[in-house]
Protein backbone atom coordinates (compact mmCIF):
# COMPACT_ATOMS: atom_id res chain seq x y z
CA UNK A 1 0.00 0.00 0.00
CA UNK A 2 2.73 2.48 0.93
CA UNK A 3 4.76 1.67 -2.17
CA UNK A 4 1.68 2.16 -4.26
CA UNK A 5 0.94 5.55 -2.66
CA UNK A 6 4.52 6.72 -3.20
CA UNK A 7 4.35 5.59 -6.81
CA UNK A 8 1.23 7.66 -7.39
CA UNK A 9 2.82 10.78 -5.96
CA UNK A 10 6.03 10.25 -7.91
CA UNK A 11 4.05 9.77 -11.10
CA UNK A 12 2.06 12.98 -10.40
CA UNK A 13 4.81 15.31 -9.30
CA UNK A 14 8.07 14.01 -10.78
CA UNK A 15 7.49 15.58 -14.22
CA UNK A 16 6.72 18.92 -12.59
CA UNK A 17 9.78 18.67 -10.37
CA UNK A 18 11.91 17.84 -13.40
CA UNK A 19 10.60 20.88 -15.28
CA UNK A 20 11.47 23.09 -12.31
CA UNK A 21 14.88 21.44 -11.97
CA UNK A 22 15.79 21.76 -15.65
CA UNK A 23 14.75 25.42 -15.69
CA UNK A 24 18.01 25.96 -13.76
CA UNK A 25 20.06 24.01 -16.27
CA UNK A 26 23.21 25.80 -17.37
CA UNK A 27 23.27 23.92 -20.69
CA UNK A 28 20.96 24.57 -23.61
CA UNK A 29 19.37 21.13 -23.83
CA UNK A 30 16.40 20.21 -21.74
CA UNK A 31 17.49 16.60 -21.25
CA UNK A 32 21.14 17.10 -20.30
CA UNK A 33 21.80 18.76 -16.94
CA UNK A 34 25.08 20.68 -16.91
CA UNK A 35 25.03 22.60 -13.61
CA UNK A 36 22.93 25.32 -11.98
CA UNK A 37 22.20 28.64 -13.59
CA UNK A 38 19.38 31.19 -13.52
CA UNK A 39 20.23 32.45 -16.99
CA UNK A 40 17.08 31.03 -18.62
CA UNK A 41 14.88 33.05 -16.34
CA UNK A 42 16.70 36.17 -17.48
CA UNK A 43 16.37 35.12 -21.10
CA UNK A 44 12.65 34.42 -20.73
CA UNK A 45 11.98 37.77 -19.06
CA UNK A 46 13.89 39.69 -21.71
CA UNK A 47 12.29 37.84 -24.65
CA UNK A 48 9.83 40.36 -26.24
CA UNK A 49 7.58 37.56 -27.51
CA UNK A 50 7.26 36.13 -24.04
CA UNK A 51 6.58 39.54 -22.54
CA UNK A 52 3.93 40.35 -25.18
CA UNK A 53 2.20 37.04 -24.56
CA UNK A 54 2.39 37.62 -20.79
CA UNK A 55 0.86 41.08 -21.17
CA UNK A 56 -2.01 39.70 -23.28
CA UNK A 57 -2.60 36.94 -20.75
CA UNK A 58 -2.61 39.34 -17.80
CA UNK A 59 -5.00 41.80 -19.50
CA UNK A 60 -7.39 39.01 -20.52
CA UNK A 61 -7.21 37.35 -17.09
CA UNK A 62 -7.79 40.61 -15.20
CA UNK A 63 -10.79 41.72 -17.29
CA UNK A 64 -12.22 38.18 -17.24
CA UNK A 65 -11.88 37.93 -13.45
CA UNK A 66 -13.41 41.38 -12.91
CA UNK A 67 -16.40 40.72 -15.17
CA UNK A 68 -16.90 37.20 -13.81
CA UNK A 69 -16.87 38.34 -10.18
CA UNK A 70 -19.33 41.18 -10.76
CA UNK A 71 -21.72 39.22 -12.98
CA UNK A 72 -21.36 36.02 -10.95
CA UNK A 73 -22.05 37.79 -7.65
CA UNK A 74 -25.12 39.54 -9.04
CA UNK A 75 -26.35 36.23 -10.48
CA UNK A 76 -25.80 34.44 -7.15
CA UNK A 77 -27.68 37.13 -5.20
CA UNK A 78 -30.47 37.09 -7.77
CA UNK A 79 -30.74 33.30 -7.70
CA UNK A 80 -31.03 33.46 -3.91
CA UNK A 81 -34.46 35.04 -4.28
CA UNK A 82 -35.62 32.34 -6.70
CA UNK A 83 -37.64 29.31 -5.52
CA UNK A 84 -39.09 26.14 -6.95
CA UNK A 85 -38.54 24.69 -10.44
CA UNK A 86 -37.04 27.90 -11.89
CA UNK A 87 -34.29 27.69 -9.29
CA UNK A 88 -33.60 24.03 -10.08
CA UNK A 89 -33.27 24.81 -13.80
CA UNK A 90 -30.82 27.69 -13.21
CA UNK A 91 -28.82 25.62 -10.72
CA UNK A 92 -28.52 22.80 -13.24
CA UNK A 93 -27.43 25.19 -16.01
CA UNK A 94 -24.69 26.64 -13.80
CA UNK A 95 -23.29 23.25 -12.83
CA UNK A 96 -23.41 22.13 -16.45
CA UNK A 97 -21.41 25.23 -17.45
CA UNK A 98 -18.63 24.13 -15.10
CA UNK A 99 -18.70 20.52 -16.26
CA UNK A 100 -18.67 21.10 -20.02
CA UNK A 101 -15.19 20.28 -21.38
CA UNK A 102 -13.12 23.31 -22.42
CA UNK A 103 -12.76 21.98 -25.93
CA UNK A 104 -16.55 22.02 -26.39
CA UNK A 105 -16.80 25.57 -25.07
CA UNK A 106 -13.92 26.57 -27.37
CA UNK A 107 -15.42 25.08 -30.52
CA UNK A 108 -18.96 26.22 -29.67
CA UNK A 109 -17.85 29.78 -28.96
CA UNK A 110 -15.76 29.82 -32.14
CA UNK A 111 -18.65 28.67 -34.34
CA UNK A 112 -21.13 31.00 -32.66
CA UNK A 113 -18.89 34.06 -32.94
CA UNK A 114 -17.85 33.36 -36.54
CA UNK A 115 -21.52 33.04 -37.48
CA UNK A 116 -22.39 36.29 -35.72
CA UNK A 117 -19.43 38.11 -37.28
CA UNK A 118 -20.40 36.87 -40.77
CA UNK A 119 -23.83 38.42 -40.31
CA UNK A 120 -22.71 41.59 -38.57
CA UNK A 121 -19.69 42.61 -40.65
CA UNK A 122 -21.51 43.28 -43.97
CA UNK A 123 -24.18 45.13 -41.99
CA UNK A 124 -21.64 47.37 -40.25
CA UNK A 125 -19.94 47.99 -43.61
CA UNK A 126 -23.22 49.10 -45.18
CA UNK A 127 -23.92 51.41 -42.23
CA UNK A 128 -20.42 52.85 -42.41
CA UNK A 129 -20.78 53.62 -46.12
CA UNK A 130 -17.04 53.37 -46.82
CA UNK A 131 -16.10 49.70 -47.30
CA UNK A 132 -12.40 50.15 -46.63
CA UNK A 133 -12.47 52.13 -43.38
CA UNK A 134 -15.27 50.17 -41.72
CA UNK A 135 -14.39 48.41 -38.47
CA UNK A 136 -14.69 44.63 -38.64
CA UNK A 137 -15.52 42.29 -35.83
CA UNK A 138 -12.98 39.50 -35.46
CA UNK A 139 -11.51 37.06 -33.00
CA UNK A 140 -9.16 38.57 -30.45
CA UNK A 141 -9.02 39.70 -26.86
CA UNK A 142 -12.74 40.46 -26.88
CA UNK A 143 -13.81 36.96 -27.89
CA UNK A 144 -11.28 35.46 -25.50
CA UNK A 145 -12.59 37.51 -22.59
CA UNK A 146 -16.17 36.65 -23.50
CA UNK A 147 -15.49 32.91 -23.57
CA UNK A 148 -13.45 32.94 -20.35
CA UNK A 149 -16.00 35.09 -18.53
CA UNK A 150 -18.82 32.78 -19.48
CA UNK A 151 -17.01 29.78 -18.05
CA UNK A 152 -15.56 31.40 -14.90
CA UNK A 153 -18.78 33.24 -14.02
CA UNK A 154 -20.30 29.86 -13.18
CA UNK A 155 -17.41 29.24 -10.76
CA UNK A 156 -18.05 32.57 -9.03
CA UNK A 157 -21.78 31.84 -8.79
CA UNK A 158 -21.07 28.50 -7.09
CA UNK A 159 -18.58 29.95 -4.59
CA UNK A 160 -20.67 33.03 -3.72
CA UNK A 161 -23.86 30.98 -3.46
CA UNK A 162 -22.19 28.64 -0.96
CA UNK A 163 -21.30 31.66 1.16
CA UNK A 164 -24.76 33.22 0.84
CA UNK A 165 -26.24 29.93 2.00
CA UNK A 166 -24.42 30.21 5.33
CA UNK A 167 -25.79 33.70 6.06
CA UNK A 168 -28.75 33.86 8.40
CA UNK A 169 -31.91 35.17 6.81
CA UNK A 170 -32.53 37.21 9.94
CA UNK A 171 -29.48 39.40 9.19
CA UNK A 172 -31.24 40.85 6.17
CA UNK A 173 -34.43 41.23 8.19
CA UNK A 174 -32.57 42.93 11.03
CA UNK A 175 -31.09 45.40 8.56
CA UNK A 176 -34.53 46.16 7.10
CA UNK A 177 -35.93 46.47 10.61
CA UNK A 178 -33.23 49.08 11.30
CA UNK A 179 -34.49 51.24 8.42
CA UNK A 180 -32.04 50.15 5.69
CA UNK A 181 -33.49 50.02 2.16
CA UNK A 182 -32.96 46.79 0.18
CA UNK A 183 -30.02 48.41 -1.64
CA UNK A 184 -28.64 49.67 1.68
CA UNK A 185 -28.87 46.16 3.11
CA UNK A 186 -27.01 44.73 0.12
CA UNK A 187 -24.25 47.34 0.41
CA UNK A 188 -23.87 47.36 4.20
CA UNK A 189 -24.60 43.76 5.19
CA UNK A 190 -24.68 41.27 2.30
CA UNK A 191 -21.68 42.53 0.35
CA UNK A 192 -19.23 42.79 3.29
CA UNK A 193 -20.22 39.30 4.40
CA UNK A 194 -19.78 37.68 0.99
CA UNK A 195 -16.66 39.72 0.11
CA UNK A 196 -14.24 36.86 0.90
CA UNK A 197 -16.14 34.57 -1.47
CA UNK A 198 -16.19 37.23 -4.20
CA UNK A 199 -12.44 37.78 -3.82
CA UNK A 200 -11.79 34.04 -3.90
CA UNK A 201 -13.95 33.82 -7.03
CA UNK A 202 -11.91 36.62 -8.59
CA UNK A 203 -8.61 34.83 -7.90
CA UNK A 204 -9.89 31.49 -9.21
CA UNK A 205 -11.24 33.13 -12.37
CA UNK A 206 -7.94 34.94 -12.86
CA UNK A 207 -5.98 31.70 -12.49
CA UNK A 208 -8.30 29.82 -14.80
CA UNK A 209 -8.13 32.44 -17.53
CA UNK A 210 -4.37 32.88 -17.16
CA UNK A 211 -3.69 29.13 -17.43
CA UNK A 212 -6.25 28.24 -20.07
CA UNK A 213 -4.97 26.90 -23.35
CA UNK A 214 -7.83 24.92 -24.87
CA UNK A 215 -10.50 27.64 -25.08
CA UNK A 216 -7.91 30.28 -25.97
CA UNK A 217 -6.56 28.11 -28.79
CA UNK A 218 -9.94 28.29 -30.55
CA UNK A 219 -11.09 31.84 -29.91
CA UNK A 220 -7.92 33.95 -29.51
CA UNK A 221 -7.68 34.73 -33.22
CA UNK A 222 -4.32 36.37 -33.87
CA UNK A 223 -3.65 37.06 -30.18
CA UNK A 224 -0.98 35.04 -28.43
CA UNK A 225 -1.47 34.28 -24.75
CA UNK A 226 1.30 32.77 -22.67
CA UNK A 227 -0.03 29.19 -22.84
CA UNK A 228 -0.40 29.53 -26.64
CA UNK A 229 3.17 30.85 -26.86
CA UNK A 230 4.46 27.91 -24.82
CA UNK A 231 2.56 25.45 -27.02
CA UNK A 232 3.95 26.90 -30.23
CA UNK A 233 7.49 27.05 -28.82
CA UNK A 234 7.40 23.42 -27.79
CA UNK A 235 6.91 22.42 -31.40
CA UNK A 236 10.39 23.81 -32.00
CA UNK A 237 11.77 21.73 -29.12
CA UNK A 238 11.71 22.05 -25.36
CA UNK A 239 14.35 24.50 -24.12
CA UNK A 240 15.21 25.39 -20.54
CA UNK A 241 13.60 28.76 -21.28
CA UNK A 242 10.22 27.05 -21.65
CA UNK A 243 10.89 25.23 -18.41
CA UNK A 244 11.60 28.56 -16.70
CA UNK A 245 8.36 30.09 -18.02
CA UNK A 246 6.43 27.00 -16.98
CA UNK A 247 7.89 27.12 -13.49
CA UNK A 248 7.01 30.80 -13.07
CA UNK A 249 3.43 30.28 -14.33
CA UNK A 250 3.03 27.33 -11.98
CA UNK A 251 4.28 29.30 -8.97
CA UNK A 252 2.03 32.29 -9.74
CA UNK A 253 -1.01 30.01 -10.10
CA UNK A 254 -0.21 28.14 -6.91
CA UNK A 255 0.10 31.39 -4.94
CA UNK A 256 -3.26 32.65 -6.26
CA UNK A 257 -5.04 29.35 -5.55
CA UNK A 258 -3.65 29.13 -2.02
CA UNK A 259 -4.62 32.75 -1.42
CA UNK A 260 -8.18 32.01 -2.58
CA UNK A 261 -8.38 29.03 -0.21
CA UNK A 262 -7.09 31.05 2.75
CA UNK A 263 -9.52 33.90 2.08
CA UNK A 264 -12.44 31.50 1.86
CA UNK A 265 -11.47 29.72 5.05
CA UNK A 266 -11.01 32.99 6.97
CA UNK A 267 -14.38 34.17 5.75
CA UNK A 268 -16.04 30.97 7.01
CA UNK A 269 -14.72 31.36 10.53
CA UNK A 270 -16.73 34.50 11.17
Amino acid at each position, binding site marked *: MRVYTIAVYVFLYAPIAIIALFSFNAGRHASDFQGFSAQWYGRALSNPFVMDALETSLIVAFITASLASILGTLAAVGLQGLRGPARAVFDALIYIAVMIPGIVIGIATLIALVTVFDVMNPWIESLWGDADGAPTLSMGKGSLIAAHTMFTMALVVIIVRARLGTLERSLG*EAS*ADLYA*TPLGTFRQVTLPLIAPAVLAGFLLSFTFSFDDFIIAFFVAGSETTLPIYIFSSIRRGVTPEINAIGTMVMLASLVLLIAAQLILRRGDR*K
Partner: protein
Amino acid sequence: MKYEPVVRNDTSSAVAELRHVSKRFGDVEAARDLNLSVAPGEFLSFLGPSGCGKTTALRMLAGFETPSEGEVLIDGEVVNALEPFRRPVNMVFQSYALFPHLSVFDNVAYGLRQRRPRLSSSQISEKVERTLDVVRLVEFGKRRTWEMSGGQQQRVALARAIVNEPKLLLLDEPLAALDRKLRKTMQIELQDLQRQLGITFILVTHDQEEALSLSDRICVMRDGRIVQIGTPRELYDAPASRYVADFVGSSNFLEGSIESVAGGRAEFTDVSGHRFAGQAGPGVEQRVRGTLSLRPEQIRISREPLDGGHPVTVQNRIFLGEHTEYVVRHEKIGTFIVLASRRAEDREQPLDAGTRAYIAWNPDAALILRAD
Protein backbone atom coordinates in the same frame (compact mmCIF):
# COMPACT_ATOMS: atom_id res chain seq x y z
CA MET B 1 -27.43 59.09 32.95
CA LYS B 2 -31.16 59.09 32.51
CA TYR B 3 -32.77 58.04 29.28
CA GLU B 4 -35.52 60.41 28.17
CA PRO B 5 -38.78 58.61 27.62
CA VAL B 6 -40.55 59.09 24.31
CA VAL B 7 -42.84 62.10 24.48
CA ARG B 8 -46.37 61.29 23.41
CA ASN B 9 -49.16 63.82 23.21
CA ASP B 10 -52.05 61.49 22.67
CA THR B 11 -51.81 58.74 25.25
CA SER B 12 -55.32 57.42 24.74
CA SER B 13 -54.85 55.96 21.26
CA ALA B 14 -53.44 52.51 20.67
CA VAL B 15 -49.80 52.13 19.60
CA ALA B 16 -50.55 48.97 17.69
CA GLU B 17 -53.74 47.31 16.64
CA LEU B 18 -54.75 44.13 14.86
CA ARG B 19 -58.21 44.13 13.27
CA HIS B 20 -59.53 40.78 12.04
CA VAL B 21 -56.04 39.81 10.93
CA SER B 22 -55.51 36.42 9.28
CA LYS B 23 -52.45 34.97 7.62
CA ARG B 24 -52.30 31.93 5.38
CA PHE B 25 -49.15 30.21 4.12
CA GLY B 26 -50.49 28.03 1.32
CA ASP B 27 -52.99 25.74 3.05
CA VAL B 28 -51.76 26.53 6.55
CA GLU B 29 -53.65 29.16 8.50
CA ALA B 30 -50.97 30.60 10.76
CA ALA B 31 -53.17 33.35 12.22
CA ARG B 32 -56.96 33.51 12.31
CA ASP B 33 -59.02 36.60 12.98
CA LEU B 34 -56.67 38.26 15.45
CA ASN B 35 -58.07 41.29 17.26
CA LEU B 36 -55.88 43.20 19.66
CA SER B 37 -55.17 46.72 20.79
CA VAL B 38 -51.92 47.62 22.53
CA ALA B 39 -51.82 50.70 24.76
CA PRO B 40 -48.83 53.06 24.90
CA GLY B 41 -46.24 51.97 27.43
CA GLU B 42 -47.79 48.56 27.83
CA PHE B 43 -45.82 45.31 28.17
CA LEU B 44 -47.80 42.68 26.28
CA SER B 45 -46.85 39.05 25.69
CA PHE B 46 -47.97 36.57 23.09
CA LEU B 47 -47.88 33.22 24.86
CA GLY B 48 -48.36 29.81 23.31
CA PRO B 49 -46.59 26.65 22.13
CA SER B 50 -44.58 26.64 18.92
CA GLY B 51 -46.75 26.86 15.84
CA CYS B 52 -49.55 28.73 17.63
CA GLY B 53 -49.11 31.81 15.43
CA LYS B 54 -47.47 34.11 17.95
CA THR B 55 -44.35 34.72 15.86
CA THR B 56 -46.46 35.27 12.75
CA ALA B 57 -48.42 37.94 14.63
CA LEU B 58 -45.17 39.64 15.63
CA ARG B 59 -43.74 39.44 12.11
CA MET B 60 -46.86 41.09 10.72
CA LEU B 61 -46.33 43.99 13.11
CA ALA B 62 -42.68 44.23 12.03
CA GLY B 63 -43.65 44.06 8.36
CA PHE B 64 -41.90 40.81 7.44
CA GLU B 65 -45.25 39.19 6.67
CA THR B 66 -48.27 40.76 5.00
CA PRO B 67 -51.68 39.78 6.39
CA SER B 68 -53.93 37.76 4.08
CA GLU B 69 -56.94 39.51 5.58
CA GLY B 70 -57.59 42.31 8.02
CA GLU B 71 -55.64 45.39 9.00
CA VAL B 72 -52.47 46.02 10.98
CA LEU B 73 -52.31 49.50 12.48
CA ILE B 74 -49.35 51.27 14.02
CA ASP B 75 -50.02 54.61 15.69
CA GLY B 76 -53.51 54.71 14.19
CA GLU B 77 -52.37 54.18 10.60
CA VAL B 78 -52.95 51.09 8.48
CA VAL B 79 -49.50 49.72 7.63
CA ASN B 80 -50.38 46.50 5.79
CA ALA B 81 -48.39 47.49 2.70
CA LEU B 82 -45.64 49.46 4.47
CA GLU B 83 -42.17 47.90 4.08
CA PRO B 84 -40.33 46.95 7.29
CA PHE B 85 -37.69 49.66 6.81
CA ARG B 86 -40.36 52.36 6.85
CA ARG B 87 -42.06 51.21 10.08
CA PRO B 88 -41.37 52.99 13.38
CA VAL B 89 -40.86 49.67 15.18
CA ASN B 90 -37.77 47.68 16.05
CA MET B 91 -37.31 44.03 16.74
CA VAL B 92 -35.03 41.91 18.90
CA PHE B 93 -34.53 38.64 17.07
CA GLN B 94 -34.47 35.20 18.66
CA SER B 95 -31.01 34.54 17.20
CA TYR B 96 -30.08 38.21 17.93
CA ALA B 97 -29.08 38.61 14.24
CA LEU B 98 -26.11 40.81 15.17
CA PHE B 99 -23.97 41.84 12.20
CA PRO B 100 -20.80 39.74 12.52
CA HIS B 101 -18.66 42.12 10.42
CA LEU B 102 -19.39 45.13 12.64
CA SER B 103 -18.21 46.07 16.11
CA VAL B 104 -20.66 46.43 19.00
CA PHE B 105 -20.65 50.21 18.52
CA ASP B 106 -21.35 49.92 14.77
CA ASN B 107 -24.10 47.37 15.38
CA VAL B 108 -25.85 49.78 17.75
CA ALA B 109 -25.24 52.75 15.42
CA TYR B 110 -26.64 50.89 12.38
CA GLY B 111 -30.21 52.17 12.67
CA LEU B 112 -29.12 55.74 13.40
CA ARG B 113 -26.87 55.76 10.33
CA GLN B 114 -29.81 54.99 8.02
CA ARG B 115 -31.65 58.16 9.02
CA ARG B 116 -32.21 60.87 6.42
CA PRO B 117 -31.37 63.69 6.90
CA ARG B 118 -28.15 62.26 8.27
CA LEU B 119 -27.24 62.61 11.91
CA SER B 120 -23.81 64.02 12.65
CA SER B 121 -21.27 61.48 13.86
CA SER B 122 -21.13 63.23 17.25
CA GLN B 123 -24.91 62.89 17.60
CA ILE B 124 -24.65 59.23 16.68
CA SER B 125 -21.84 58.45 19.08
CA GLU B 126 -23.59 60.31 21.88
CA LYS B 127 -26.78 58.29 21.44
CA VAL B 128 -24.87 55.03 21.08
CA GLU B 129 -22.78 55.66 24.19
CA ARG B 130 -25.85 56.57 26.19
CA THR B 131 -27.64 53.39 25.10
CA LEU B 132 -24.60 51.21 25.78
CA ASP B 133 -24.64 52.75 29.24
CA VAL B 134 -28.28 51.76 29.70
CA VAL B 135 -27.50 48.12 28.89
CA ARG B 136 -24.22 48.26 30.87
CA LEU B 137 -21.89 47.64 27.92
CA VAL B 138 -20.02 50.96 27.85
CA GLU B 139 -16.57 49.37 27.69
CA PHE B 140 -17.55 46.90 24.97
CA GLY B 141 -18.04 49.30 22.03
CA LYS B 142 -14.95 48.13 20.14
CA ARG B 143 -15.57 44.41 20.65
CA ARG B 144 -16.67 42.04 17.94
CA THR B 145 -20.08 40.60 18.72
CA TRP B 146 -19.01 36.98 18.24
CA GLU B 147 -16.41 37.36 20.97
CA MET B 148 -19.14 38.06 23.53
CA SER B 149 -21.19 35.80 25.81
CA GLY B 150 -24.84 35.03 25.11
CA GLY B 151 -26.07 37.50 27.72
CA GLN B 152 -23.86 40.25 26.35
CA GLN B 153 -24.99 39.57 22.78
CA GLN B 154 -28.55 39.76 24.03
CA ARG B 155 -27.89 43.21 25.48
CA VAL B 156 -26.26 44.39 22.24
CA ALA B 157 -29.39 43.26 20.37
CA LEU B 158 -31.53 45.21 22.83
CA ALA B 159 -29.34 48.31 22.57
CA ARG B 160 -29.39 48.14 18.77
CA ALA B 161 -33.19 48.29 18.87
CA ILE B 162 -33.86 50.82 21.67
CA VAL B 163 -31.27 53.34 20.47
CA ASN B 164 -33.79 54.21 17.74
CA GLU B 165 -36.44 55.10 20.34
CA PRO B 166 -39.10 53.08 18.51
CA LYS B 167 -42.82 53.43 19.15
CA LEU B 168 -42.96 49.71 19.60
CA LEU B 169 -40.30 47.18 20.52
CA LEU B 170 -40.92 43.64 19.32
CA LEU B 171 -39.11 40.81 21.09
CA ASP B 172 -39.13 37.35 19.50
CA GLU B 173 -38.26 34.81 22.23
CA PRO B 174 -35.28 36.98 23.18
CA LEU B 175 -34.26 34.96 26.23
CA ALA B 176 -34.82 31.45 24.84
CA ALA B 177 -31.11 30.86 24.10
CA LEU B 178 -29.92 31.80 27.60
CA ASP B 179 -29.46 29.44 30.54
CA ARG B 180 -31.96 29.52 33.36
CA LYS B 181 -30.07 31.74 35.76
CA LEU B 182 -29.10 34.30 33.13
CA ARG B 183 -32.66 34.27 31.85
CA LYS B 184 -33.91 35.32 35.30
CA THR B 185 -31.43 38.20 35.42
CA MET B 186 -32.31 39.34 31.90
CA GLN B 187 -36.03 39.21 32.70
CA ILE B 188 -35.50 41.69 35.50
CA GLU B 189 -33.33 43.90 33.28
CA LEU B 190 -35.93 43.80 30.54
CA GLN B 191 -38.65 44.89 32.92
CA ASP B 192 -36.51 47.70 34.37
CA LEU B 193 -35.64 48.86 30.88
CA GLN B 194 -39.25 48.95 29.80
CA ARG B 195 -40.28 51.03 32.82
CA GLN B 196 -37.30 53.32 32.37
CA LEU B 197 -37.85 53.94 28.64
CA GLY B 198 -41.63 53.93 28.54
CA ILE B 199 -41.50 52.14 25.17
CA THR B 200 -44.31 49.70 24.39
CA PHE B 201 -42.97 46.12 24.45
CA ILE B 202 -44.51 43.15 22.69
CA LEU B 203 -42.86 39.89 23.68
CA VAL B 204 -43.30 36.50 22.07
CA THR B 205 -42.61 33.57 24.36
CA HIS B 206 -43.51 29.96 25.01
CA ASP B 207 -42.33 30.28 28.62
CA GLN B 208 -45.37 30.91 30.83
CA GLU B 209 -43.23 31.92 33.80
CA GLU B 210 -41.57 34.59 31.69
CA ALA B 211 -44.90 35.89 30.43
CA LEU B 212 -46.41 35.89 33.93
CA SER B 213 -43.52 37.73 35.55
CA LEU B 214 -42.96 40.39 32.85
CA SER B 215 -46.25 41.30 31.24
CA ASP B 216 -48.97 43.79 31.97
CA ARG B 217 -51.21 41.70 29.76
CA ILE B 218 -50.84 38.28 28.20
CA CYS B 219 -52.39 37.15 24.97
CA VAL B 220 -52.68 33.34 25.03
CA MET B 221 -52.69 31.79 21.56
CA ARG B 222 -53.59 28.41 20.16
CA ASP B 223 -53.73 27.16 16.56
CA GLY B 224 -53.50 30.68 15.18
CA ARG B 225 -56.23 32.08 17.41
CA ILE B 226 -56.19 34.29 20.47
CA VAL B 227 -57.94 32.24 23.16
CA GLN B 228 -57.75 34.72 26.04
CA ILE B 229 -56.31 38.16 26.75
CA GLY B 230 -55.87 39.35 30.31
CA THR B 231 -53.54 40.35 33.09
CA PRO B 232 -51.37 37.56 34.49
CA ARG B 233 -53.60 37.40 37.58
CA GLU B 234 -56.79 37.18 35.53
CA LEU B 235 -55.37 34.35 33.44
CA TYR B 236 -54.14 32.48 36.50
CA ASP B 237 -57.24 32.94 38.65
CA ALA B 238 -59.89 32.90 35.96
CA PRO B 239 -58.71 30.96 32.92
CA ALA B 240 -61.41 30.83 30.28
CA SER B 241 -60.65 27.29 29.23
CA ARG B 242 -58.79 24.20 30.23
CA TYR B 243 -56.12 25.07 27.65
CA VAL B 244 -55.36 28.39 29.37
CA ALA B 245 -55.46 26.83 32.83
CA ASP B 246 -52.99 24.21 31.65
CA PHE B 247 -50.69 26.66 29.87
CA VAL B 248 -50.66 29.38 32.51
CA GLY B 249 -49.43 27.75 35.69
CA SER B 250 -50.08 24.07 36.31
CA SER B 251 -53.32 22.50 37.39
CA ASN B 252 -55.06 19.26 38.33
CA PHE B 253 -57.84 18.40 35.90
CA LEU B 254 -60.85 16.12 36.43
CA GLU B 255 -62.95 15.20 33.42
CA GLY B 256 -66.71 14.88 33.76
CA SER B 257 -70.01 16.62 33.09
CA ILE B 258 -71.60 19.81 34.36
CA GLU B 259 -74.82 19.12 36.30
CA SER B 260 -76.13 22.58 37.09
CA VAL B 261 -75.12 26.21 36.81
CA ALA B 262 -76.52 29.00 38.99
CA GLY B 263 -75.24 32.37 40.22
CA GLY B 264 -71.66 31.91 39.08
CA ARG B 265 -71.42 28.49 40.71
CA ALA B 266 -71.63 25.07 39.15
CA GLU B 267 -72.08 21.46 40.18
CA PHE B 268 -69.88 18.89 38.52
CA THR B 269 -69.73 15.08 38.43
CA ASP B 270 -66.47 13.48 37.45
CA VAL B 271 -66.18 10.23 35.48
CA SER B 272 -65.97 8.18 38.71
CA GLY B 273 -69.30 9.62 39.88
CA HIS B 274 -68.02 12.00 42.57
CA ARG B 275 -69.84 15.32 42.84
CA PHE B 276 -67.95 18.59 43.29
CA ALA B 277 -69.02 22.20 43.61
CA GLY B 278 -66.99 25.06 42.21
CA GLN B 279 -66.91 28.42 40.48
CA ALA B 280 -68.38 28.40 36.99
CA GLY B 281 -66.03 29.49 34.22
CA PRO B 282 -67.17 31.57 31.22
CA GLY B 283 -69.60 29.89 28.84
CA VAL B 284 -70.32 26.96 31.14
CA GLU B 285 -73.68 25.30 30.46
CA GLN B 286 -75.74 22.62 32.08
CA ARG B 287 -75.36 19.00 30.93
CA VAL B 288 -72.27 19.44 28.74
CA ARG B 289 -68.86 17.90 29.13
CA GLY B 290 -66.61 19.89 31.40
CA THR B 291 -63.34 19.98 33.27
CA LEU B 292 -62.70 20.78 36.91
CA SER B 293 -59.45 22.66 37.38
CA LEU B 294 -57.71 22.81 40.73
CA ARG B 295 -54.36 24.55 41.32
CA PRO B 296 -51.88 22.35 43.25
CA GLU B 297 -51.26 25.05 45.89
CA GLN B 298 -55.01 25.26 46.65
CA ILE B 299 -55.11 21.69 47.97
CA ARG B 300 -54.44 21.00 51.65
CA ILE B 301 -52.86 17.71 52.61
CA SER B 302 -52.92 16.16 56.06
CA ARG B 303 -52.31 12.90 57.90
CA GLU B 304 -55.47 13.51 59.95
CA PRO B 305 -58.97 13.34 58.36
CA LEU B 306 -60.05 16.72 56.96
CA ASP B 307 -63.56 18.12 56.82
CA GLY B 308 -64.96 17.18 53.38
CA GLY B 309 -61.62 15.57 52.61
CA HIS B 310 -60.76 12.67 50.35
CA PRO B 311 -58.59 9.72 51.44
CA VAL B 312 -55.47 9.27 49.34
CA THR B 313 -52.18 7.39 49.27
CA VAL B 314 -48.96 9.36 48.89
CA GLN B 315 -47.11 8.06 45.85
CA ASN B 316 -44.20 10.42 45.67
CA ARG B 317 -42.74 13.33 47.59
CA ILE B 318 -40.45 15.84 45.82
CA PHE B 319 -38.53 18.39 47.84
CA LEU B 320 -38.43 21.70 45.94
CA GLY B 321 -36.84 23.93 48.56
CA GLU B 322 -39.50 26.44 49.45
CA HIS B 323 -42.24 23.95 48.60
CA THR B 324 -42.80 20.25 48.66
CA GLU B 325 -44.67 18.58 45.83
CA TYR B 326 -46.74 15.47 46.58
CA VAL B 327 -48.14 13.10 44.04
CA VAL B 328 -51.14 11.44 45.68
CA ARG B 329 -53.68 8.93 44.41
CA HIS B 330 -57.36 8.59 45.22
CA GLU B 331 -58.64 5.08 44.39
CA LYS B 332 -61.50 6.29 42.22
CA ILE B 333 -60.91 9.94 41.31
CA GLY B 334 -57.29 9.53 40.24
CA THR B 335 -53.98 11.30 40.76
CA PHE B 336 -53.50 14.80 42.22
CA ILE B 337 -50.46 17.02 42.40
CA VAL B 338 -50.35 18.89 45.73
CA LEU B 339 -47.99 21.76 46.45
CA ALA B 340 -47.45 22.36 50.17
CA SER B 341 -45.52 25.33 51.46
CA ARG B 342 -42.65 24.60 53.78
CA ARG B 343 -44.39 26.21 56.73
CA ALA B 344 -47.49 24.09 56.31
CA GLU B 345 -45.36 21.01 56.10
CA ASP B 346 -43.20 21.62 59.17
CA ARG B 347 -46.12 21.07 61.48
CA GLU B 348 -46.23 17.40 60.65
CA GLN B 349 -43.99 14.48 60.05
CA PRO B 350 -43.07 14.38 56.35
CA LEU B 351 -45.53 12.25 54.40
CA ASP B 352 -43.42 9.57 52.79
CA ALA B 353 -44.44 7.48 49.83
CA GLY B 354 -47.00 4.87 50.82
CA THR B 355 -48.48 6.94 53.68
CA ARG B 356 -52.25 7.25 53.95
CA ALA B 357 -53.38 10.90 53.99
CA TYR B 358 -56.33 13.19 53.30
CA ILE B 359 -56.71 16.06 50.84
CA ALA B 360 -59.30 18.85 50.81
CA TRP B 361 -59.89 22.20 49.17
CA ASN B 362 -62.15 25.20 49.40
CA PRO B 363 -64.95 24.86 46.79
CA ASP B 364 -64.19 28.43 45.64
CA ALA B 365 -60.75 27.26 44.55
CA ALA B 366 -62.20 24.70 42.14
CA LEU B 367 -62.91 26.11 38.72
CA ILE B 368 -65.40 24.38 36.45
CA LEU B 369 -64.61 24.97 32.79
CA ARG B 370 -65.95 23.93 29.44
CA ALA B 371 -64.10 21.03 27.89
CA ASP B 372 -61.96 22.28 24.98
